């Protein structure tokens, strides 16, 4: 089967995942509504520290309040996307790997890694994407920023690379379950450390900045896009982000295949 055919089939498979999620959420409406509600609480709570911070000063390391608010909005959108399409799956990794549910996946003629990473979708989390977008718009307006189409494209590409990178790092961390038992804490830790992304990278000391750019690459997902929108990143960070995203994807795939080899050698 050609690569094109393979990609098409996996996209069709993903479409079925999505349709099923819609079917399920129309059935369990309470959960859907609750998720949206929690998303709003989350956004509100995330804005409180910003509001407190800028009650004492007009600018921190060159960032104004409105700019940081726009950043928080981007952060909500990014975490919303991850929470919708990626988080529900990575939380189940121990079930797949430690409880043998992976067996049912491995014998299908589809990519096991694709299935395991994208099977489940929590549609209610998309609410955060909407509310986040609103906050971004408000922040940009109050900051007086007028991004032109090129800025917006750059921001979107940066967000895309950030999403890919974060997914790769997060899934790679969950793949540790192939070798060591019980790593449910991993996902929690990842999400907790990722909350640093709701503040501009500039707020942190140099070492931490490096960590947040290359180890847990939330910088590409939040700070850089925010900077792009408030008028100021060249094409190099964008290319860098895309390049890193590609490297990350390849590394994650290699790690998965390494894990599978261990899985298929181990006992029942």
């Amino acid at each position, binding site marked *: 089967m050609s690569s094109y055919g393979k990609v098409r089939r996996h996209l069709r498979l993903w479409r079925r995942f999505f349709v099923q999620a819609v079917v399920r959420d129309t059935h*369990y409406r*309470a*959960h859907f509504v*609750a*998720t949206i*509600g*929690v998303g709003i*609480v*989350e956004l509100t*709570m995330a804005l*409180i*520290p910003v509001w*407190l*911070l800028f*009650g*004492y*000063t007009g*600018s*921190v*390391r060159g960032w104004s309040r409105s700019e940081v608010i726009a950043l928080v909005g981007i952060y909500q959108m990014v975490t919303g996307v991850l929470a919708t399409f990626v988080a529900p799956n990575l939380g189940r990794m121990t079930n797949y790997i430690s409880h043998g549910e992976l067996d049912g996946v491995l014998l299908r003629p589809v990519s096991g890694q694709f299935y395991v990473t994208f099977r489940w979708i929590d549609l209610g989390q998309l609410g955060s994407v909407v509310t986040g977008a609103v906050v971004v718009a408000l922040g940009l307006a109050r900051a007086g920023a007028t991004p032109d189409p090129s800025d917006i494209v750059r921001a979107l590409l940066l967000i895309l690379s950030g999403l890919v990178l974060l997914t790769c790092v997060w899934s790679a961390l969950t793949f*540790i379950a192939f070798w*060591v*038992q*019980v*790593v*449910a*804490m*991993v996902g*929690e*830790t990842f999400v*907790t*450390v990722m*909350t*640093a992304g709701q*503040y501009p990278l*500039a*707020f*942190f*000391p140099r070492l*931490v900045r490096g960590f947040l750019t290359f180890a847990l690459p939330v910088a590409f997902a939040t700070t850089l896009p925010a900077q792009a929108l408030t008028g100021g990143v060249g094409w190099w960070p964008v290319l860098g982000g895309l390049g890193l995203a590609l490297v990350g994807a390849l590394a994650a795939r290699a790690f998965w295949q390494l894990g599978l080899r261990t899985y298929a050698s181990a006992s029942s």
Partner: protein
Amino acid sequence: MTAADLASNLVYRSAFVFFMLNTIAVPVISLLVWRAALASGAHLPVNREYLTTYFVILSFVSMATSSWLAPFLSEDIRLGKLSIWMIRPASLLHELVANNLSEKLLKTVILVPMIGGLWLIFADSVRLPTDPVRWMLFVPSLVLGAVLVFTMDVIMGSLAFWLDDTGGLIRARVLIADVLSGSIVPLALFPAWLHGFVTAQPFRFTVSFPVEILTGQLSPHAIATGFALQAGYVLAVCVAGWAVWNAGVRAYSAVGV
């Protein structure tokens, strides 16, 4: 029971590497952000020493008063695994407490070097109190704080007696508590007009109050009022918890397993 719990917890040793990171991540992030604010010339009502000391102590206190049983309790209720416990709720309570304490013991052991590390990194600004009285007052406030969180968690988990999906509510409570307990921003940094509210609300007594005792920012009068409020909240929540549990069991049995 605690020894057996400890043993099974050792098996999860890999999890504790990540646990350390998880516990100190939020306080460290907040600390760095506020230090950046100070460096940018913000005029805060507190200084750098206070901030650093506050967050270092916080990373221990928030772990020490934490509870994680709500989702598990909800699931057990939903799956009908509680039939035995309902006849002997005392033993369920015993098991939940034992699990809570044994894990915390282990987490303390693992957390100590981590906090030591933090102390070294921020050595110039950490000022732990030497006054033994404050430490003596710290301990009961910590215990009461733990009881408060534990009981609130039991109540949240018990909502599963009536609701199918408690996940959202549990998470919402955690989000709100994080802010109001001073875990994200020290309560001292809330604007003056909110001072009365933040000082009186119950979440302060889950984390912030014990930390405030150690940082020495409270007058004797404030400590006394604080303890009175804390004890009052603990009592109220325990009574509420007992009532909710019983109502839940009654509702549960009415429907049948």
